[in-house]
């Protein structure tokens, strides 16, 4: 018997009742046993358990198997598990194929047990045809550059960057805004202890600025990302500040003298800033920035006041953006989130009624560094309100806007803000209108209790409408208390909307540059929701913080640190094993038409005539070249034509599970 003769082993997994509840697994195993080439077939309760894997390994030895099929769940999560298992038993890991009986059969054909079992049999037969034709492949190693880039300098990105730098890896921290700190830097207090936000964030921000291993690229954006795991090239556009960072001492004379006032995005429309500005005093770097869209000198060519007054001559209106190319082995994406702006829908009169504000605006009003120096004042008349209403879930859990998810921070945040109001103004009336109150995590329930003990009232129900008194600008909230059934009409001085969390507006573009996937709601998608929460589908790219979905600060920090650990684990060995799935060219059959060069998205095909070859480091294994070669001269490893065709034939010939 030659070595080439396939001796296939088929293992059908029950996955408890997950598969076996719909698919008759023993029947599938029995059916598979009769397929040509199959010398061993059995069903296992849990193939991926230690016992299950041991059974597979023993069967490989006992029956001298040289091909293995496991019919279980999706290969997107479990292929690596079973490849490692067959490798342990001495088999090449690429002589393995997986059938997805769970996600593609039992879970989506519930109650159609007979048909599902038939489909399962057919899928197994297809896989057996494929596996017989697979060839052993050797993984290739690529060297890994021991540097990393963190995109996004909020608290998640800062946490990731600091851990990576402390582990000894040179780290580039790329931040779009003029300063790092993200949304957390704009908060007044953080729940549940209600400690001062910038007091805990400020020190780690300056640590980033000081760390010798961190190259801070603030006010910078990612232009393009090329390369592959271990060797990415990122082109970064360092936007010009029109101020020489080396010369600027952060004295602020320019800001005092600047005549142009513009809306301050860091105060969410509550205050103005100058055209030359620093987002907040603790900014890192502490350099000032000229807003090119608002500066009169840059837009109209007249003014130049700041340049005249700058004591160090740091201002230069002719400065240009700088493109920097960095080479890194791994990338951490932590670009955070956007706050939902209800003025688009004018929900609850926001944007029309002056005293309806969002919770981020209230955050600035309670903040001592904010526009009112920590005194809560009504936008309409500057009076201190006495009667407050909070409306929860504005834009969250709302199918009308495809924002059908909990914002995760809104309930705790409103309790935090309510307790702050009660501390500042003990006579105030605070009512919170909520569909449900969700206080997850240690300490959060305590905050909920503390708020109620201080006199905050929680009303179950979502207001139906808010009316404004045109003279007093007071607000009448109409709602129904769902516990008592009572209709409520209560007048307030100020209404605060707990705004939703959205994916950042430019995430689609970044996702495309990085080649990572977005989930249904637009946030970036992790490789596995349970087991690989900080990995993307692209090797070497890790995800952290609220770019993955709504999360609070401790979670964002944990994700940042987890992504850093993932990146370190990848970089530490200095080399990375890449999938040996790349294209091969048969130069004898090649007619030198050059179509493959054009088709390859990575420029991985080089040379002409007999010199034509595929550079495996660049080839990502899509097989587009193989799919279009008119001569069949180019073929894709592991998805070779003679490996796919038998599977196609088996699928097309399938007649109700009869082999």
């Amino acid at each position, binding site marked *: 018997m030659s070595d080439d003769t396939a001796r296939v082993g088929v293992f059908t997994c029950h996955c408890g009742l997950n598969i076996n509840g719909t698919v008759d697994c023993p029947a599938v195993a029995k059916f598979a046993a009769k397929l040509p080439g199959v010398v061993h077939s059995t069903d296992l309760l849990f193939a991926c358990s230690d016992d299950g894997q041991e059974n597979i390994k023993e069967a490989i030895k006992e029956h001298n198997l040289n091909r293995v099929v496991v019919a279980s769940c*999706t290969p*997107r999560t479990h292929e690596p598990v079973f490849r490692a298992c067959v490798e342990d038993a001495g088999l090449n890991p690429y002589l393995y194929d997986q059938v997805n009986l769970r996600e593609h059969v039992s879970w*989506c054909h*519930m109650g159609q047990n007979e048909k599902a079992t038939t489909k399962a049999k057919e899928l197994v037969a297809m896989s057996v045809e494929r596996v017989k034709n697979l060839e052993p492949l050797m993984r290739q190693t690529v060297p890994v550059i021991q540097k990393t880039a963190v995109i996004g300098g909020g608290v998640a990105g800062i946490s990731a960057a600091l851990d990576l730098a402390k582990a000894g890896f040179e780290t580039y921290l790329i931040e779009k805004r003029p300063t790092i700190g993200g949304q957390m830097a704009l908060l007044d207090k953080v729940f549940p202890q209600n400690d001062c936000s910038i007091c805990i964030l400020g020190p780690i921000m300056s640590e980033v600025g000081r760390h010798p291993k961190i190259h801070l690229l603030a006010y910078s954006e990612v232009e393009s990302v090329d390369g592959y795991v271990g060797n990415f090239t990122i082109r970064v556009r360092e936007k010009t500040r029109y101020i020489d960072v080396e010369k600027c001492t952060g004295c602020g004379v320019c800001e005092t003298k600047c005549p142009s006032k513009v809306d301050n995005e860091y105060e969410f429309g509550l205050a103005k800033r100058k055209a030359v500005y620093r987002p907040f005093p603790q900014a890192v770097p502490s350099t000032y920035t000229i807003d090119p869209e608002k500066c009169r000198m840059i837009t109209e060519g007249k003014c130049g006041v700041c340049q005249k007054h700058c004591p160090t001559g740091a201002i230069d209106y002719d400065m240009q953006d700088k493109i920097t190319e960095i080479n890194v082995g791994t990338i951490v994406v932590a670009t955070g989130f956007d706050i939902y702006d209800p003025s688009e829908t004018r929900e609850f009169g926001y944007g029309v009624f002056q005293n309806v504000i969002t919770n981020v605006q209230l955050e600035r009003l309670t903040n001592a560094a904010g526009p009112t120096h920590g005194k809560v004042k009504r936008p309409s008349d500057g009076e201190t309100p006495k009667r407050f209403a909070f409306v929860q879930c504005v834009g969250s859990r709302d199918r009308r806007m495809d924002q059908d998810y909990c914002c995760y921070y809104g309930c705790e945040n409103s309790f935090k803000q309510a307790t702050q109001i009660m501390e500042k103004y003990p006579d105030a009336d605070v009512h919170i209108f909520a569909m449900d109150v969700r206080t997850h995590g240690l300490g959060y329930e305590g905050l909920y209790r503390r708020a109620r003990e201080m006199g905050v009232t929680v009303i179950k129900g979502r207001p139906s409408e808010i009316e404004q008194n045109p003279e007093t600008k007071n607000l009448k909230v109409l709602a129904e208390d769902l516990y008592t059934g009572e209709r409520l009409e209560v007048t307030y001085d100020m209404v605060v909307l707990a705004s939703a969390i959205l994916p950042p507006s430019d995430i689609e573009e970044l996702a495309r540059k990085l*080649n990572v996937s977005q989930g249904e709601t637009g946030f970036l998608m992790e490789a596995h929701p349970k087991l690989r929460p900080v990995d993307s589908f692209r090797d070497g790219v890790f995800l952290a913080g609220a770019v993955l979905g709504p999360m609070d600060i401790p979670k964002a920090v944990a994700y940042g640190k987890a992504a850093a650990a993932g990146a370190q684990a990848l970089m530490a060995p200095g080399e990375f094993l890449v999938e040996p799935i790349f294209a091969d060219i048969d130069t004898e059959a090649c007619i030198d038409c050059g179509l493959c060069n054009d088709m390859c998205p990575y420029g991985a095909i080089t040379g002409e005539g007999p010199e034509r070859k595929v550079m495996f480091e660049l080839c990502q294994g899509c*097989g587009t070249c193989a799919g279009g070669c008119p001569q069949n001269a180019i073929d894709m490893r592991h998805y070779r034509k003679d490996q796919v065709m038998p599977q196609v034939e088996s*699928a*097309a010939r399938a007649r109700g599970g009869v082999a």
Partner: protein
Amino acid sequence: MSKSFEPNIVAFTCNWCSYGGADLAGISRIQYPTNAKVIRLMCSGRVDPSMVLQAFKNGADGVMITGCHIGDCHYSTGNYRTQVRYDALSTAMDMMGLHPDRLRLLWASASEGQQWADGITEMTQIIKKLGPSPLNGRGKPKKATPKKAAPKKEAVSKKKAAPKKAAKKGGAKK
């Protein structure tokens, strides 16, 4: 035909989008007919037209090519080629004596479990109406002479064109 006709559909998927979408349909327990059998490739760009022909030649009642939405391809531009090859195959269906509706292109992202399930359900219904493939030697196909069939086919494909466009738009907004 003794039993009611159950179409046999071969569905090519890419590893990143449509296979993920099919996984999500399962994870979300979205229910759909059992008729489509998936062949996983890395990219829909790997689908060699000869694979589609081979499927029909061996008796498949329908073939689906599925992948990432245009612009979302994991390999940047692989699915542009898929679109071109699909268009070419589509025009060749008549020549093979097959109804053009037996071949379908479906873009579904990894977050579109519902679109995947709807796509399979719809395809199954279409093929059920068309009957078994004339090439698979089972039962009698609803075969008209090519001359007669031509305008009829046109009408069907026109009708189909509208929802297909809508589906693409729907996906693009993501």
